[in-house]
């Protein structure tokens, strides 16, 4: 490799931000002060530096956090430090929505205009921002601030939501949800009284937790038991509530018995694919290759999903303990949490929990004095839904573009850094301590035979009490909606989006549908990530379909033709249908769409392209839309 640089220098701030992460450069070869006597006689740095390629995304975050964008000088310095070809680093930086590669003001408001927030007035808010602050992306507030539209921020329980970043020496970020005081947001962006506008950065998370978790404190909860009842910032409180007993029990059982219990529990993954967790663990535990890795998938970006965020914010020790158990069972010494970049409070709480656990010897070289090593590192995503796909996630951690890899080989054989890897969703892991403490059989006794245990549902949209609900599998959709207070304002139910943008729409006939993997599959729908987004009879379904189409166009990684171009054609087609101007005839247009959807489902590389048409097809099948009768038929 022969790196060519342009001589773009980092600013002092940028250099300091990178050096804080990587340490000071050893020689001029890595971008430090050039000392002719020392550096002129030998060259060094290449291989050792390139081995730290996985620090590329953290470095880009450091630049973004410090100066609000990734400048040429900053990027070139990172390339020198890590020995990454500038073209590749540029390819990575331009992949992520949260990173700016053109100058951007230091204060940015990412305003959600996705499904749940649209039902709560997001478009009105955006229109007001456009009017009073300026067009999205344009500098406002004396050049210090701007706003951007954003896909779902995982705060649909308190829609409409906005995420604020302020770059600087002490970078700040916060989610404002709901944006109750639009005028305050407008003022802070357009007419900042001072800078940065501190009043916006007060965390709205914990005060109204009962609003997000209406079951808070109820008995019988397995996943949400500690949420809102145990101080999430204190290891002592966690232990006092029974925390870390499961890890002690796990060490008593030993890895093999642990995995047997997992298999007996019949727990399946909650990240969307419903793969048996015990079998996944077993495959990695039996792999002969070392090292092996554990990844907790906390990228939660499916529109309508916010369950993992609430778990991480309000029971971070629970996830740390679960990961430690998983690492012990599978023989992994390193665990990564790939955390969505839009979750500042979860980042803070989880980071704090890891530090406390490490200090108490519950992570590190000799966990619990039981002779095994395990530690956890958090990696922040940077605004890319596709990085939740497990192989795209590996690429993202390794410092490459978050493009999915071809499967097979599967992660249990060839995963992170090419090694056997367990990937589990946050909610999947949250079940682990219970199973270890109480045995697989007692877990399997909950729920139904085909779907054991409890499930978290993210209920949002037009219901009386949107929020996170924990119910045993088998609860019907109607019962769940009753828990959430029914349709808001006593209106009629029109449709429910199950499973998120990658899921499908069902009508009122589904109220009797038991929420299990097997029943939803039989009914031609899916539980997906547990999204239950409710539309009443006033809702504008075509508008929702357009938003879903633009979500997939925005989030396609661009690798494969059916998804990269297909997602654009799908969006264009919905716009024509909504405008009543189909290409050719309505029938011809719908036939083209049927074929397009089939090709996207059949020929795309990964689940994103394969499901990008699912919700739209299901709506066309179940409801009369665009002047065409409901097409009927089961989704294949």
């Amino acid at each position, binding site marked *: 490799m022969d790196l060519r640089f342009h001589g773009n220098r980092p600013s002092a701030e940028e250099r300091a931000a990178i050096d804080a992460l990587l340490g000071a450069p050893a020689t001029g070869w890595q971008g430090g002060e050039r000392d002719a006597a020392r550096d002129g006689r030998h060259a060094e740095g290449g291989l050792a530096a390139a081995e730290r390629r996985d620090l590329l995304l953290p470095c880009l975050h450091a630049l973004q956090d410090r100066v609000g964008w990734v400048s040429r000088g900053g990027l070139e310095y990172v390339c020198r430090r890590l020995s990454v070809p500038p073209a590749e680093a540029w390819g990575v930086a331009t992949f992520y929505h949260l990173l700016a590669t053109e100058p951007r003001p230091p204060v940015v408001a990412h305003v959600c205009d996705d499904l749940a927030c649209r039902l709560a007035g997001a478009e009105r808010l955006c229109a007001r921002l456009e009017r009073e602050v300026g067009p999205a992306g344009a500098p406002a507030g004396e050049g210090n601030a701007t706003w951007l539209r954003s896909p779902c921020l995982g705060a649909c329980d308190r829609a409409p939501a906005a995420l604020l970043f302020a770059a600087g020496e002490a970078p700040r970020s916060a989610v404002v949800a709901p944006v109750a005081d639009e005028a305050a947001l407008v003022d802070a962006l357009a007419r900042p009284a001072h800078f940065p506008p501190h009043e916006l950065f007060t965390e709205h998370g914990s005060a109204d937790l009962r609003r997000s978790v209406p079951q808070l404190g109820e008995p019988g909860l397995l996943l949400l038991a500690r949420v809102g009842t145990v101080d999430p910032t204190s290891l002592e409180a966690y232990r006092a509530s029974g925390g870390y007993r499961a890890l002690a029990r796990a060490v008593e059982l030993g890895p093999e018995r642990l995995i047997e219990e997992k298999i007996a529990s019949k727990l399946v993954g909650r990240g969307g694919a419903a793969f048996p967790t015990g079998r996944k663990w077993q495959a990695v535990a039996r792999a002969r290759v070392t090292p092996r890795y554990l990844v907790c998938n906390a990228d939660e970006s499916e529109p309508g999903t916010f369950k993992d965020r609430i778990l991480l914010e309000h029971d971070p020790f629970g996830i740390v303990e679960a990961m430690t158990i998983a690492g012990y069972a599978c023989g992994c010494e390193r665990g990564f949490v790939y955390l969505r970049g839009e979750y500042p409070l979860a980042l803070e709480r989880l980071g704090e929990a890891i530090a406390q656990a490490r200090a108490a010897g519950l992570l590190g070289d000799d966990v619990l004095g039981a002779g095994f090593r395990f530690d956890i590192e958090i990696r922040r995503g940077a605004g890319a839904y596709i990085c939740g796909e497990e192989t795209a996630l590996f690429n993202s951690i390794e410092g490459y573009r978050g493009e999915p890899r071809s499967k097979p080989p599967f992660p249990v054989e060839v995963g992170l850094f090419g090694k056997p890897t367990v990937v589990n969703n946050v909610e999947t892991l949250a079940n682990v301590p219970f199973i270890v403490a109480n045995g697989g059989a007692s877990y399997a006794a909950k729920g139904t035979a085909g779907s054991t245990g409890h499930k978290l549902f993210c209920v949002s949209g037009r219901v009386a009490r949107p929020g996170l609900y924990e119910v045993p599998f088998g609860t019907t959709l109607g019962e769940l909606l009753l828990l959430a207070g029914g349709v808001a304002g006593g209106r009629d139910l029109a449709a429910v989006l199950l499973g998120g943008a990658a899921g499908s729409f069902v009508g009122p006939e589904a109220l009797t549908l038991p929420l299990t993997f097997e029943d939803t599959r039989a009914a031609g729908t899916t539980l997906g990530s547990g999204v239950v987004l409710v539309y009443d009879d006033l809702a504008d379904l075509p508008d929702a379909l357009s938003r879903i189409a633009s979500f997939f166009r925005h989030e396609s990684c661009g690798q494969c033709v059916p998804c990269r171009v297909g997602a654009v*054609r799908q969006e264009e087609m919905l716009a024509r249908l909504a405008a009543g101007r189909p*290409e050719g005839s309505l029938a011809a247009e719908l036939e083209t769409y049927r*074929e397009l959807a089939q*090709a996207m489902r059949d020929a795309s590389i990964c689940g994103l392209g394969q499901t990008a048409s699912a919700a739209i097809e299901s709506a066309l099948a179940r409801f009369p839309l665009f002047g065409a009768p409901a097409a009927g038929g089961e989704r294949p």
Partner: protein
Amino acid sequence: MTETPIWFTPPPRSPRLPEAPPREVRERIALEIDGERVEVEQGATLLDACRAAGREIPTLCYLETLTPVNVCRICVVEVEGARVLAPACSRKAEAGMKVATESPRVATSRKLVLELLASSVDLSTAPGLAELMARYGARPERFGANAASVAQPVKVDNDLYVRDYGKCVLCYKCVEACGVDAQNTFAIAVAGRGFDAGISTEHDVPLPDSACVYCGNCIAVCPTGALMPKPEHDLRAVGRWDEARQTRTDTICAYCGVGCTVTLHVQDGAIVKATSPFENQVTRGNLCVKGRFGFEFVQLGRRR
């Protein structure tokens, strides 16, 4: 005193001729292609198996000399029991697989891939695609006259080759050729995301400012003519490029001791392009800037 010569005497030559290391014998596995039994070596791809069965599978992003990226999806085939179609170019053959190469699902996906590409990319210089479109009945116009495309101005920023990304199907081949599969220069990469993704230097700087060494190995693998030597581009611009009138002659590059095989494309008595055969053991289709572009001197003398 015995005379010991002060010079080094080489050891006697071994009478044994050097041999290539023995070829690893791989197990053979049997599978069914369109109902016909074929045997291939363990590790072979479905594409290998289909070819062994005499099936012609279209490919676009695949090339024998590059690591498969399986992104274009034109080569998909139907494997019995699988939820989705499989890319033949990279999916490994497994014993007992039942593969359909032209099922209705396969035909629909191939047709759509062609329609999606043709409606968004200028395929006018992509060899073979018009025939494929006819074979699968592709009608890209059904996506409407305003379908978004990647049309953009041609990049002419150096004397050796032009980049017309309005013709780019994003097959990743050039990136692979510039990277670990051949050149190891990493001058170009995929930047952006989704439909906005494209091949780019860092910050989209002109090629002369990038790490490019003008080996032209990216041009050699580009399946659409998006990357094109300047002479060819200029001749096409004035309507004088005519492959029917061209001869191809293999010779050995005269510049250095590697001795790459160079194929000279000659039109009207002048060299218009230099390439190297992909099946050549030495070059695998690759050359350096001298072999690929350094032929002008041959014709300078004659013009004077």
